[in-house]
């Protein structure tokens, strides 16, 4: 069985699709560049060799695997395929393992200071390689499984449903008093520039009326009814301004008010 996750042609060589991986290591040189691209690095290549020869990953025959790996690398070199450095590092590593396996187990070996029968994989020079191969193999398989999950917009199609316009209750950004202030300033400035003629000041200003009222009430020292504060000549606007000014004064605490059924009576607070 081939475990390499490829369904489409592996490669196109001289216009011919390659459906299978090479039967043995002696590959036409022109195919090597293509093969190199098929492998995701030296671990991938090693796993391929192990699977191809039906070897036990936990008991790798390092001699033959190294031989095959080197033959492969050599063939690539002959074909002047630019090899990624990782392939050469792996080659060196394999040779190192091979030579370490040739050495008799020595007592000075820090790895084998334990019991006699401690012939477990920890002391095996192949241990690290095996661990890396196993770990990588698992991620290879995980990647295959991931690819087998349904993919969004390929295997699972999104659903589009027409949504009629939704009537909205508009939200408004809050406004601050200083914005009104600067608008007012700008307006004043604009009018100052544009104005040709000076006009008489306004007849009634709440602010001015507040001052007048307070003065009068302080002089009075006594309750006055709202009616008494009005002047007939000022008309309705006068009533409004006086009333507004009074409200302001009450709010500010300068004036106290008493409301009877008949009338509204006010007097100034005694200044402290």
């Amino acid at each position, binding site marked *: 069985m081939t475990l390499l996750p490829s369904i489409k042609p592996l490669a196109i060589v001289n216009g011919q699709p390659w459906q299978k991986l090479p039967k043995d290591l002696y590959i036409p040189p022109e195919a090597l560049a293509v093969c190199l691209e098929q492998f995701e690095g030296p671990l991938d290549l090693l796993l391929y060799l192990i699977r191809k020869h039906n070897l036990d990953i936990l008991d790798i025959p390092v001699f033959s695997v190294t031989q095959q790996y080197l033959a492969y690398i050599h063939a690539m070199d002959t074909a002047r395929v630019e090899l990624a450095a990782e392939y050469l590092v792996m080659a060196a590593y394999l040779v190192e393992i091979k030579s370490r396996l040739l050495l008799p187990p020595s007592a000075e070996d820090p790895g084998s200071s334990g019991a006699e029968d401690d012939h477990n994989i920890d002391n095996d020079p192949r241990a690290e390689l095996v661990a890396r191969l196993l770990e990588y193999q698992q991620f290879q398989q995980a990647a295959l499984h991931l690819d087998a999950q349904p993919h969004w917009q390929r295997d699972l199609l999104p659903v589009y449903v*027409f949504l009629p316009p939704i009537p909205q209750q508009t*939200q408004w*950004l809050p406004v601050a*008093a200083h914005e009104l202030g600067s608008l007012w300033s700008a307006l*004043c400035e604009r009018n100052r520039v544009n104005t040709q003629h000076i006009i008489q000041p306004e007849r009634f200003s709440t*602010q001015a009326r507040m001052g007048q009222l307070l003065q009068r009430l302080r002089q009075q020292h006594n309750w006055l009814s709202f009616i008494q504060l009005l002047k007939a000549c000022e008309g309705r606007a006068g009533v409004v301004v006086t009333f507004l000014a009074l409200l302001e004064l009450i*709010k500010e605490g300068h004036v106290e008010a008493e409301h009877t059924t008949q009338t509204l009576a006010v007097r100034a607070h005694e200044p402290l």
Partner: protein
Amino acid sequence: MNPSEDETQQLIEAAIFSALEPVPSGQLMRLLSGADAETQLAHILNTLQQHYQGRGVELVQVASGWRFQVPASLAPALAPLYPEKPKRLSRVILETLAIIAYRQPITRAEIEALRGVAVSAEVIKNLLDRQWICSLGPKELPGRPMQYGTSDAFLNYFNLQTLADLPHWLQENENTEIPKLDH
């Protein structure tokens, strides 16, 4: 192998649901086989249409084909899911408000004189609806135009104790050079 009627219906349903645009009957027909494709399709669409009656989506035929849509009657209730970005109040509204705040009581004609441009009734209505301004009674002038002033709600909204807390209140209001309208 002929797909069962159920499978064909699923396919048509999926085709309309997964399309971005309404799907013409001709397109749907490509999913059917047999001589009576047209009759089949009409039957399936009819069945689907009935199935989706009273549900969250409905199957309708528009000019360019078939589509599923949220019934118009449900749309307003979906508003909480589509909150609009808060908008800024327009400049004309804010400027009018500023003029009323600093110059109350004031008539619409006087506001227009200050702004130099017309102030539409909608602007005044907008401010009245927000309860930021209120009518202070008519001015004793020919035509008795209504005067406006700010409300307590205005003070609350702008976090002011009194109108005097408005920025630039004193100097602008006391010795103003703002043109006052002659009627």
